[in-house]
């Protein structure tokens, strides 16, 4: 097995607001291996994006702060670096693709300028060299006729093309870890499929580790080697993708999967999980899922379950799982 490149240990990221402390990420641990795609799945506002921003240390300060934990990249705890050192990691070693391709490009610069920016910054490239590298970055993303594209402006491109350019920007300095925050949510299904195939291809070529954030189990099934399910700021289950689809252990995981429409089932109504996720300002004691859990017992109400490894690499936090 390839070596672990990123290890997140017991990460707590809180937002300190006037109306109380929002525990957006409350004790999250996971690791990512080289050349692996690690999925982070969960409904909206469960802390997926905050986890990603914490790794990059780009939480909106001073309200958002990492309170506790470690983010170890290749033996270095990123949380101990000073601002300047951290900045040099961004784009060069860790990079990220944002959600909305329509707004993630600067309208006043050409595509070439924007892809070249990180290269100029981190690799000190200039002039002709930048252009060469930009073209090869665009080639990596299978973009036809990169020479024309690099002189174009974002408004001249389609959504799918813009998202590829955003990918090229993120990959421009050959980072070792790429965080993709729902990069296909804003795209239509065909483009989505193309884009995901592209990612697999890039990973094969560069051996980059990818953290893929999504709420879509279909995407997880296609893209990820391993997956962690998040609920209300915690990871409730982690396993190999195949295993989690075959034998989901946590009631939340099974409930989520049942909520995905399937072609081979002809049920009248789609299953939905009753109730709302708890407010991150005011979390219930015990298991966070118990108010909505179909199999909850008394102990779930009183104590938070600890994480158990039930088979190798399959971790679950639930009292009901033995």
């Amino acid at each position, binding site marked *: 097995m390839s070596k672990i490149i990123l290890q997140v240990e017991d990460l707590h990221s809180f937002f300190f607001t006037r109306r109380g402390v929002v525990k957006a990420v409350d004790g999250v641990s996971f690791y990512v291996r080289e050349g692996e795609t690690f999925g982070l799945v969960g409904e909206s506002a469960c802390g997926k994006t905050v986890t990603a921003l914490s790794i*990059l240390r*780009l939480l909106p300060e*001073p309200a958002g702060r990492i309170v506790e934990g470690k983010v170890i990249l290749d033996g270095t705890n990123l949380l101990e670096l000073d601002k300047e050192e951290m*900045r*040099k*990691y*961004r*784009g*060069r070693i860790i*990079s*990220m693709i*944002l*959600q*909305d391709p329509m*707004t*993630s*490009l*600067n*309208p*006043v*610069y050409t595509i070439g300028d924007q892809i070249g*920016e*990180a290269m100029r*910054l*981190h690799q000190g490239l200039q002039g002709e060299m930048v252009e060469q590298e930009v073209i090869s970055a665009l080639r990596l993303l299978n973009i036809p006729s990169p020479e024309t594209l690099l002189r174009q*402006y974002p*408004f001249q491109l389609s959504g799918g093309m813009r998202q590829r350019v*955003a990918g090229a*920007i*993120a990959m*421009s*300095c050959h980072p070792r870890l790429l965080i993709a925050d729902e990069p296909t949510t804003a795209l239509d299904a065909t483009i989505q499929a193309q884009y995901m195939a592209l990612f697999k291809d890039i990973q094969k070529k560069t051996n980059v580790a990818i953290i893929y954030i999504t709420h879509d189990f279909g995407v997880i099934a296609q893209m990820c080697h391993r997956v962690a399910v998040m609920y209300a700021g915690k990871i409730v289950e982690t396993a190999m993708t195949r295993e989690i689809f075959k034998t989901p252990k946590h009631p939340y995981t099974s409930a989520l999967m049942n909520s995905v429409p399937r072609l081979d089932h002809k049920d009248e109504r789609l299953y939905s999980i009753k109730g709302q996720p708890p407010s991150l300002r005011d979390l219930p004691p015990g298991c966070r899922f118990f108010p909505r859990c179909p199999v909850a017992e008394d102990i779930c109400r009183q104590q938070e379950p600890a994480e158990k490894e039930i088979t190798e690499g399959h971790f679950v936090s639930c009292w009901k799982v033995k």
Partner: protein
Amino acid sequence: MTRWGRISRDLVMILPVTVLAVLIFTAIFADVLAPYPYDKTALPERLTPPAWCEGGSTKHLLGTDTLGRDILSRAIYGARVSLSVSLLAIAITAIVGTALGIFSGYMGGRTDAFIMRVVDVALSFPALLLAILLAVSLGPGFFTVIFALSALGWAGYARIIRGEALRISTSDFVAQAQVIGVSPGRIMLRHIFPNILNILIVGITLSVGAMILAESAMSYLGIGIPPPVPSWGSMVADGRNSLDSAWWISTFPGILIGMVVMSGNFLGDWLRDRLDPRLRQL
């Protein structure tokens, strides 16, 4: 685009540039171009109308004022004061205001709150009072006028630019820049600044007129450039009392002010269109 369309579009740029270039040229070479010194009085020839009017003479093409000073010469010299004072004051206020506005909007939090309170104070302070104060304490003169015009003028820019910078700071492309490790200084300069240029240019073109008028207001109150050095504003003010009998004293410098203001506005429009990549290639 039709041939005529292209010509008319370029005319929008060529005309104001020509006007401003000619005026700046006359301001620089006023000593050579003006037929008389700006302070040469000739009482027998006082209140001569322009040459093409009844009683006018070719000695004074645009007539003379109440002291018999040549209006054309004074207007030529006046270009010096009016243009240099207003352009310098605009440059200072625009640079300071933009820098503070972007900084404030991007940093947010306490920095933003502090800078915006200073802006509040600056905006609520009566500008003329400060100008009088400065003129009294520093003595009237060229730099006092520029200082007085700039001391509060930056606040308006800072307020407008800050709002725009705040909006842009939360946009995804700034987040994207942060994610690839671009430094805050570079983000402000390279990513935010170009995106507020439109607003800045509109602000500058609008303030050309305001600055020239503010300068003339100061001259009118006797706290501008001390007489007999002419500025267009003070010339307009001089002629106000005799507007019904000697209209030419106020009218010609007034036309010049109007020309500068309009040239600024047209040029601003044209520039704004050029700087928007969406319109550039259409």
